[in-house]
């Protein structure tokens, strides 16, 4: 079946990003389709390129990027959540003098419409929060 996922919590401080990742792996293993992962609220911090955890810990941001490369999962970051939380679209960043390369590989920034579309197209919608 088609499953869409929503992540509402920041990485490391909460287990949400970890639980979601393990859930997604299991769903893909069982042949389900992850229609989209939508990052909302503090969940947008999962998409910051500059996160550098210590070498002996999982790299949550890189792990998401890998999910996109390996399984083609659509990773969408909410634009309005992101602006409040220091993650600017490239065009905005270049206009205001911010970080043009802030978004990690494999993510894209878009509006809430993409969450709604995912929810309408999916059989299930699972939210992981703080």
């Amino acid at each position, binding site marked *: 079946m088609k*499953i869409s996922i929503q992540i509402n919590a920041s990485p490391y401080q909460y287990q949400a990003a970890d639980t979601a990742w*393990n*859930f997604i792996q*299991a*769903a893909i*293993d069982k042949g389900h389709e992850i229609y989209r992962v939508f990052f909302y609220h503090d969940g947008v911090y999962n998409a910051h390129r500059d996160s550098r955890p210590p070498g002996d810990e999982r790299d949550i941001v890189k792990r998401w990027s890998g999910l996109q490369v390996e399984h083609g999962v659509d990773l969408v970051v909410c634009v309005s959540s992101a602006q409040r939380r220091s993650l600017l679209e490239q065009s905005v960043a270049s206009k205001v003098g911010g970080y043009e390369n802030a978004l990690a590989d494999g993510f894209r920034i878009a509006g809430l419409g993409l969450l709604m579309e995912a929810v309408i197209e999916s*059989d299930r919608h*699972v939210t*992981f929060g703080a």
Partner: protein
Amino acid sequence: MLYIVNKKGDALINCIDTVSVDDVILLIEDAVYAALATSLPSVLSKPINGVAIYALMPDMQARGIDVARCYKHIQYVDYAGFVDLVEHNNPVRSCY
């Protein structure tokens, strides 16, 4: 309806307040502590009529929680079982 609960405080209490027959509760993350049998009555001390209660085993193991110390009416799933619960129940409500 499937409730996914990740904390044992208000999130779980609010969930218990609204569950009804044929609902399923899945305890994940820190909510798995609610599966532990405590000396004082706790929110899951007693079975809930017609409601299946599961705990996510990998989160139990992460916290060193021994099934032998838990309430007998709790059942266990791994992540594959978590996916099955999502497949077989709708809607899914996250309580956090």
